[in-house]
């Protein structure tokens, strides 16, 4: 029982960042019909941005996370503007191939730039865990959880309270009508991709100091993001948030009670099971066909 609580807390910390990854991916997927295979590399980029900021430039931790956000957004906007906009209207397979190409090129460029050796990111928080009854948690993890919560809340605000968010929601529902109403959907696409990329980079910057940073760390992150999106349903923000938490907890429980070797299997099994049993995601309501 004590172990269970500990697993739940650990799962929550992981789940918060998974939710960030998932929200970014689900927005891009739902709005632009693009399967962003480079999502994992944006996560890695965020982690290396934080590494550079903290270990090399030695700035404040939160400044480093903010820097990762900005770099992620810039990278996302560039990829969208240069590669995806010319392919607007092409099939989902075409853009998927392009994003696979981006993913391979980016991952190996990071490998060339930073080397293959895993790096640990220094952080300013005390290493002695806080003990709350049966649960102990490192202060850094608590910060990560809080920062993820703030970013998730911020995403909700952007999407539900701003003009950009309104344009995004309109484009999601019906791009043609949105365009007729004067929404410049190309800009919405660029903004969406940048937004999703920034969240992925932030997730990388937050989880980077908890684990190690290495060029291929994005592979598993991307798969986690995909399983979160599939759990939550396409373009479903609350779904992605919940999905992230569920995946984080499922991984922790799987590692704790089954075998740590199969920790990463949780994401795969979720994808397969959800697509088999409920392809529209766990939280989708029945929609009108046609």
């Amino acid at each position, binding site marked *: 029982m004590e172990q269970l609580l500990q697993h739940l807390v650990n799962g929550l910390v992981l789940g918060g960042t998974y939710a960030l990854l998932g929200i970014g991916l689900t927005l891009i*997927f739902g709005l632009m019909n693009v*399967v962003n295979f480079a999502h994992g590399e944006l996560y890695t980029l965020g982690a290396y941005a934080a590494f550079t900021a903290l270990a090399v430039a030695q700035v404040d931790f939160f400044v480093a996370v903010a820097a990762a956000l900005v770099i992620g957004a810039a990278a996302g906007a560039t990829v969208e503007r240069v*590669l995806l906009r*010319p*392919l607007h209207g092409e099939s*989902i*397979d*075409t853009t*998927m*191939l*392009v994003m*696979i*190409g*981006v*993913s*391979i*090129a*980016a*991952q*190996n*460029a990071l*490998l*060339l730039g930073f080397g293959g050796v895993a790096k640990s990111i220094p952080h300013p928080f005390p290493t002695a865990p806080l003990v709350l009854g049966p649960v102990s948690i490192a202060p850094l993890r608590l910060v990560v959880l809080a920062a993820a919560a703030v970013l998730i809340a911020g995403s909700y605000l952007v999407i539900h309270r701003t003009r950009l968010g309104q344009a995004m929601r309109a484009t999601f529902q019906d791009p043609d009508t949105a365009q007729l109403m004067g929404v410049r959907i190309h800009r919405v696409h660029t903004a969406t991709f940048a937004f999703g990329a920034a969240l992925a980079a932030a997730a990388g910057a937050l989880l980077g100091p908890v684990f190690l940073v290495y060029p291929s760390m994005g*592979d598993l992150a991307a*798969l986690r993001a*995909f*399983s979160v999106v*599939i759990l939550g349903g396409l373009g479903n923000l609350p779904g992605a948030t919940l999905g992230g938490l569920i995946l984080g907890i499922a991984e922790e429980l799987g590692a704790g009670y089954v*075998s740590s*070797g*199969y920790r*990463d*299997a949780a*994401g*795969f*099994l979720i*994808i*397969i099971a959800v*697509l*088999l049993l409920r*392809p529209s995601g766990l939280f989708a309501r*029945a*929609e*009108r*066909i*046609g």
Partner: protein
Amino acid sequence: MSRLLAALGALAAVTVPLWIASPYHLHVLIMAGIFIVLASSLNLLLGYAGQLSLGHAAFFGIGAYTSALLALRLEWSFWAGLVCGTAAAAVAGWAIGRLALKVRGAYFVLVTISFAGVISLVSVNWMELTNGPLGLPGVPAPEVLGWPLRSKAAYYYLVLGGVAVAVLVCRRLVRSRIGRAFVALRENEALAESVGIDAVHYLVVAAVSSAALAGMAGSLYAHYTRLVSPEVFLFSYTVTMVIMVVAGGKGTLSGPVVGAVLFTVLPEALREVVAWQWQMVLYGVLLVALVFFLPRGIVPALASRRRRRAPALETPPVTVAARPAEAARPDAFATAATAPPAAAAAATPKRSAAERAESAAGQAAPAAGRLVVRDLGVRFGGVEALSGVSFEVRPDSVTSLIGPNGAGKTTAFNAITGYLRPSRGDVLWEGRPITRLRPSEIARRGVVRTFQKTSVFPGLSVLDNVRVGLHLRGRAGWAATLAGRRRVREEEQALAAEAGEIIAFAGLAGRRDEPAGALPYGEQRLVELAVALAARPRVLLLDEPAAGMTTAEKAAASALIRRIRDRGVTVLVVEHDMRLVMGISDTVIVLNGGRVIAEGPPAAIQAHPEVIRAYLGAGAAGPPASAPVGGTGPARS
């Protein structure tokens, strides 16, 4: 030209060990051969069936592990291992293929990635079986008649044999009705189902054959490198295969071969010049550049430079000569309408004497040829699109279904033909319910539809469109197809001839080899009709066949519909053009608000007060004389 190239290539491939002595060069060629098998196998799924598998390395790995384990633990021979490795991968492919039942496109991609991920984790963690990350060393070299194939040259010939088998399997599959079904599903799944192609079945066939070939490649790989480790599941293997297929040309037979050779030899050649990491960066950039600058791949690009023609499927010689006079005429509908009746009779789908007698004796056997819709209801969430619709279509008649926009006409079509599951009620065809059947099963029973939105297989030539329509007329299964039986070839020729006749009947003889997607609108609708007719309907459901046509085209369309009826095909039409409806119909059924509000012969319907109210509103006074009730009905997109 291409035949000469292929012959030269084959000659070069066979004689390679005579003029290449370097074991390193032979090694590169052996790997190229293994990748040719892999790329060809992926091409079946990605290029032909249109489903991208990013878990293909899993099938490769399953083949490799099965073969290696059998050789090491049970001391089975290479050949037994090869067969079992292929079979094990095929079983895995079957399991994955069943998933295609539910998901397509991006979701299918994710299922395949996840599948490969799970298998890879198992290979790392199941120490007792797989020896974990260290892998299985010491896989023995294969033996042929007691001689172990230790030299590179000997193994080269073994792999060459594997390549020959893989290319032959792909070639036979692709050029058969099975391959056409794959392509039809890729091009337009709904239309493919409407002519009786069972999507799930054929996607599973594609997945199984693709996985089996990948498993064979795995087995060849295991006995060549003598070491199988979890590395075989690496995502970069899958990506390499995808690049090979896309670069070479997906959906072509030679594309994956060219791609595989190019992308095994090129990285090796670059190895001395560029570091491995740079190579991978280059790979990524290359994939992006390919999509932008060579989206169809090297082989199709070269081919279209040589001859600017439609990318047709392989076509056996058609023996039926198209009437040159017809072929030359541009206004196709008029051609069909003015074709001599005798020629038309010869060309329409023929029905057996027994069938004709049966429909003539419709009175005696009340169920024969009779489509009955009973209390049909369809709900979309809270909206009731159809609420208890009942009607009957008599054999050998033309029945029209009319009503204002949103009346539920297309919904009724969708529910009858299995594209929508009704929330209540039944559809009976010849006395048996077809309500819960899949569209392909309904088509198999002779109930065939067309679509409101023009729906063809855009990338296929007109001939291939019609050949896909003839799917149910073919019998050849996969075993006979792979064995290359003579009756399969004869059947193919007969089908091609029949397709030619149907094309001539529809007045499209001059367009035979053009891609359907490139034809003008009116002719695309004719292609659609030809495809539906090829499926040999007993009842043909036409959804707004004349929408968007000119007056002259409409007149020709009416004539064509009547002639289809005269060949003994019952016709049910949804149409907005009242002149056309009143001109061709034996019975008119009026739907409004999801209910039948009137039914009867055209004259009675034109005078029916409730029909007039439905079309013109409550204030409309008196029936308009002979004017079309609903105007000319705007074409809906």
